[in-house]
């Protein structure tokens, strides 16, 4: 609690204590016999109840008075003031029961509720701020032979900074010396630490866990990952969701309308039908209390804020409430294949030696033949071969572009390449049942087997697609520039509904446009299309889709710029989680809207027919606001 809240709290406690004393005095002591007359007793009670009332609510009355001066008639201070003063004023109607206790209690209740609201909102604000507490406070720089702490803003690109164990990496950079483990949880939600060594790129915001490392800054602080993320989350509240705008617009009409009805209710029946004044005035006052729109107006942005905050804890950055809202309506998810569903790097997935050949020998021969090539395929073969490469054994290497490599190894002629190379050289080879790039190997004209190289799918890709389906996504589509048979195999393995292969980057935009049309026409017409890419080369598609999701975006500025939702790590399973958080948040938003409006309308109806009292009205205002706020705070809780 801050100072202001504490002061209010003390005031409320004092007022409640006084209220109880006054209430006991008024109820139990025979005031009227002591004072000699009923009327005097009534006015003494009136004065007594005024004390706790004013202690609790003088600020509300004051603000109401000021605001009338400013022409702000429909603010809650004014409404509460009129309602409570009205309750006190009922003393003027001799035919009614006195309502002073109610007037004072309503003010007390209102203040307790307001205090709680302010406390709860402050608390959720703080917990979200803590969650995003990834900003480094300083950077260690060597100046004149001594290590000094400077503001990260003062570090220039190319400067070397020292990050000690337990400290946060202040700027993006490259490790110059030292090895350590980095905790990236604050950025990615990933709890397994990442190992870094000399030459590795590291990003700001991670925590150095074990060793001491020296880092050369590659970006100024303002452009470092941590600054970009903070900026993004800070700005998220700016982009308001449709529901949020709807509610504030609704509030603009709701309050004046209810106040209008309140006036009519208080005046018309007694004047026209000659009914009891005090009864109808009281009904009007109840309307005034219920007319405050606060529960709605506060709980909707709070829910969105909580949802965005909760998502950011998992390394899912949503750029605005509006995107969270759209994300919740996702019916079609379109993936880019390479780098999104697959690793984007080639790997040896199978070694199939001909009969009588040792698989390790096959791999060794292929690795030696490819020893000098920088082709991705050569790199993957060498990566799969764990032994050392003895350059003495290799001789006379000829690379034949588009075909493969011809080399002499241990005085044997070795061919490594595709079926074209084999048939050209008269070596009989056979196809493989696996899809991917097939690398055939021959030794002195004899076929000794083949190696299958493919872009491997990410371990959680299939799970991710299944999770999307479980989350209610109706259609999944994969786009790729790859060959149709490779695309078909991946789509089948992952359980993706459709695929479009051999697409050029510009074709992807056209495909997404077609799919957009189809999604928008299907069913209710409210379905949305999300495109997931790795942010490389697909910025136009990211912007074209209803929701662009960029993954593995740490450090990729273009992707962060173009996407609406940024997944900090490259796990596709986070897509379903993002949609799940969005749906849950929207659920909470609608629960709050329906609940708050439902209770308010119910109490209004009950008040109009004379069943509701002031207590129920206060519940419909402050009580509902408190419940809605508590519900909104649920949006923040996400499962790790």
């Amino acid at each position, binding site marked *: 609690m801050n100072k*202001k809240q504490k002061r209010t709290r003390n005031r409320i406690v004092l007022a409640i204590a006084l209220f109880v004393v006054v209430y006991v005095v008024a109820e139990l002591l025979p005031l009227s016999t002591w004072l000699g007359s009923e009327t005097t007793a009534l006015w003494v009670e009136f004065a007594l109840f005024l004390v706790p009332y004013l202690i609790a609510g003088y600020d509300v009355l004051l*603000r109401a008075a*000021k*605001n009338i001066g*400013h*022409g*702000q008639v429909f*603010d*809650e201070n004014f409404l509460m003031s009129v309602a409570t003063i009205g309750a006190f004023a009922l003393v003027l109607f001799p035919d009614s029961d006195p309502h002073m206790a109610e007037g004072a209690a309503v003010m007390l209740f209102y203040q307790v509720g307001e205090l709680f609201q*302010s406390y709860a*909102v402050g608390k959720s*604000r703080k917990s979200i701020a803590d969650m995003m507490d990834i900003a480094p406070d300083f950077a260690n720089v060597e100046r004149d032979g001594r290590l000094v702490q400077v503001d990260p803003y003062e570090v220039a690109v190319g400067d070397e900074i020292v990050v000690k164990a337990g400290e946060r990496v202040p700027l993006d950079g490259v490790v110059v010396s030292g090895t350590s483990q980095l905790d990236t949880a604050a950025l990615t939600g990933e709890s397994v630490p990442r190992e870094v060594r000399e030459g590795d790129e590291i990003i700001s915001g991670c925590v150095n866990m074990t060793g001491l490392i020296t880092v050369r800054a590659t970006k100024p602080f303002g452009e470092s990952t941590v600054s970009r993320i903070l900026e993004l989350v*800070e*700005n998220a*509240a*700016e982009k*308001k969701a449709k529901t949020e705008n709807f509610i*504030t617009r609704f*509030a*603009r009409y709701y309050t004046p309308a209810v106040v209008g009805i309140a006036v009519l209710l208080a005046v018309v029946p007694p004047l026209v039908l000659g009914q009891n004044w005090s009864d109808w005035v009281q009904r009007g006052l109840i309307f005034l209390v219920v007319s*405050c*729109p*606060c529960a709605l*107006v*506060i709980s909707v*942005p*709070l829910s*969105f*804020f909580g949802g965005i905050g909760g998502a950011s804890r998992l390394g899912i950055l949503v750029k605005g409430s509006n995107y969270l809202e759209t994300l919740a309506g996702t019916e079609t998810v379109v993936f880019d294949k390479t780098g999104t569903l697959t690793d984007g790097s080639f790997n040896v997935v199978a070694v199939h030696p001909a009969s009588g050949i040792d698989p390790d020998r096959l791999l060794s021969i292929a690795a030696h033949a490819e020893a000098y090539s920088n082709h991705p395929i050569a790199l993957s073969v060498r990566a799969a071969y764990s032994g050392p490469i003895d350059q003495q054994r290799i001789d006379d290497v000829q690379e034949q572009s588009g075909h493969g490599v011809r080399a002499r190894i241990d005085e044997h002629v070795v061919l490594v390449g595709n079926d074209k190379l084999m048939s050209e050289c008269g070596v009989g080879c056979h196809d493989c049942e696996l899809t991917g790039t097939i690398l055939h190997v021959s030794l002195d004209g004899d076929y000794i087997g083949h190696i299958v190289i493919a872009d491997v799918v990410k371990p959680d890709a299939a799970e991710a697609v299944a999770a999307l389906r479980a989350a209610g996504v109706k259609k999944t589509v994969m786009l790729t520039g790859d060959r149709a048979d490779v695309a078909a195999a991946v789509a089948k393995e992952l359980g993706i509904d459709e695929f479009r292969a051999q697409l050029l980057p510009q074709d992807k935009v056209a495909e997404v446009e077609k799919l957009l049309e189809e999604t928008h026409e299907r069913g209710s017409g409210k379905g949305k299309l999300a495109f997931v890419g790795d942010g490389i080369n697909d910025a136009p598609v990211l912007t074209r889709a209803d929701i662009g999701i960029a993954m593995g975006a740490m450090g990729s500025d273009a992707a962060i710029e173009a996407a609406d939702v940024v997944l900090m790590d490259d796990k596709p399973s986070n897509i379903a989680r993002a949609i799940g958080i969005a749906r849950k948040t929207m659920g909470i938003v609608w629960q709050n809207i329906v609940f708050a409006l439902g209770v308010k309308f119910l109490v209004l109806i009950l008040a109009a027919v004379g069943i509701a009292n002031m207590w129920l009205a206060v519940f419909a205002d402050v009580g509902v606001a408190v419940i809605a706020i508590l519900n909104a705070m649920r949006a923040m809780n996400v499962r790790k």
Partner: protein
Amino acid sequence: MRKAFKLQDLDCANCAAKMENAISNIDGVKSATVSFMTQKLVLEADDDRFEAVLDEAERACRKIEPDCVILR
């Protein structure tokens, strides 16, 4: 020019919405958002009138919630 300002003692969500509405209607304002959750005003207005707009925005805020101050 586009600038963000912290709002101190912005205690009521409905007031935030009203402020946003009032500030958006000030002459020279391109866009204005008042976020109750982050207690921030993001104002985009013509460069040459920015200070004047900000003064007017401050008056508008005070009218709606007397306690609220724009920190600049």
